[in-house]
């Protein structure tokens, strides 16, 4: 059972790294932010699997914090960061 | 007054259950728990004043079953679209006037549509909801209407006539 968990954790990790290509390619800032969304799903899945593999249930708390941080970073980006840039563009 | 007491009781039970799950059933941090539960209760009353709706558990169960069924069906469709050599995408934006009253009902509708594969809420104004769909050839209207009915049933809200 544990070997399957390990295999799947590595598989999802590889998926996550391939998806980072999208972050480098862009083209818009929003495409790059999709990485934050990705970490709140793939990252959480990897952490859940790791919690079982390592038998360290504390990793479940890490998974919780991951998805919370993804929300906060996303909201800050959408409501603040991207907006300021827009205003800068208008002024220049 | 009685309904206020009942709301308080239900909400504190809910938050206690969440706290109990978070600390994995241990009993040694009840003091922090008590503070967190009270804070959560106060916050919930500020953000979501009572007496706006009455939660129905059978409605909730119906909604959940419907939601997971649709989400599975649509997820498979979008996954197939992604894997196919020629992803046959026909995205478009639809406007729909929600029949649900403003507030919690509409927020739940927007978020549900975001989680159902094939639909993405783009904007929500006072009168309209803008939905981005992956395949414009499928009728989205009937789906949205039936989700609305499920949500209205869950929160015992009245639907406006469209």
């Amino acid at each position, binding site marked *: 059972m544990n070997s399957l968990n390990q295999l799947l954790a590595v598989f999802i990790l590889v998926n996550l790294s391939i998806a980072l290509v999208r972050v480098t390619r862009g083209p818009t800032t929003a495409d790059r932010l999709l990485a934050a969304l990705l970490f709140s799903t793939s990252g959480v899945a990897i952490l859940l699997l790791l919690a079982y593999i390592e038998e360290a249930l504390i990793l479940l708390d890490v998974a*919780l914090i991951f998805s919370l941080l993804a929300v906060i970073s996303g909201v800050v980006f959408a409501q603040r960061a991207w*907006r300021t840039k827009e205003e800068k563009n208008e002024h220049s | 007054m009685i309904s206020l007491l009942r709301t308080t009781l239900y909400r504190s039970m809910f938050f206690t259950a969440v706290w109990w799950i978070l600390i994995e059933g241990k009993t040694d941090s009840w003091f922090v728990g008590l503070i967190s539960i009270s804070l959560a209760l106060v916050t919930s009353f500020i953000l979501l004043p009572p007496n706006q709706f009455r939660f129905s558990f059978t409605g909730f169960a119906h909604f959940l079953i419907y939601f997971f069924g649709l989400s599975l069906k649509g997820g498979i469709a979008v996954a197939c679209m992604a894997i196919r050599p020629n992803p046959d995408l026909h995205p478009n934006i639809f406007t729909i006037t929600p029949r649900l009253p403003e507030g919690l009902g509409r927020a739940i509708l927007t978020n549900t549509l975001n*989680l159902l594969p094939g639909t993405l809420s783009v904007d929500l104004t006072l009168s309209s909801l803008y939905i981005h769909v992956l395949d414009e050839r499928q009728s989205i209207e009937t789906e949205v209407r039936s989700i609305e009915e499920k949500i209205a049933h869950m929160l015992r809200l009245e639907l406006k006539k469209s």
Partner: protein
Amino acid sequence: MSILELCSIVFLVVGAIFFLAGTIGLLRFPDVYTRLHALAKVDNLGLGFTSIGLVFQAPELVIALKIILIWLLALVASSTLSFLIARRAMKRGIIPWRAKEHTI
């Protein structure tokens, strides 16, 4: 092999397939809105299947409930985030790909 383990394996493998499909969609779809479709939905289904698969392996009931709680939090998170990103992209005037007529 017990029936619980079998269920767990099936759910975990299906979840991994959904993750793969989500990644492929993210790389291939043409604009930010369609990519949001691939990410917020297909990946969430992947996470859902993975967590149900792990629930079957849970040593205690509380652990199973906690995994479901984490999944629900992740669901709310991606739903809110995708709405915010889509709305902001719309406000900044990123035109949806290949939409011949839009009503905004």
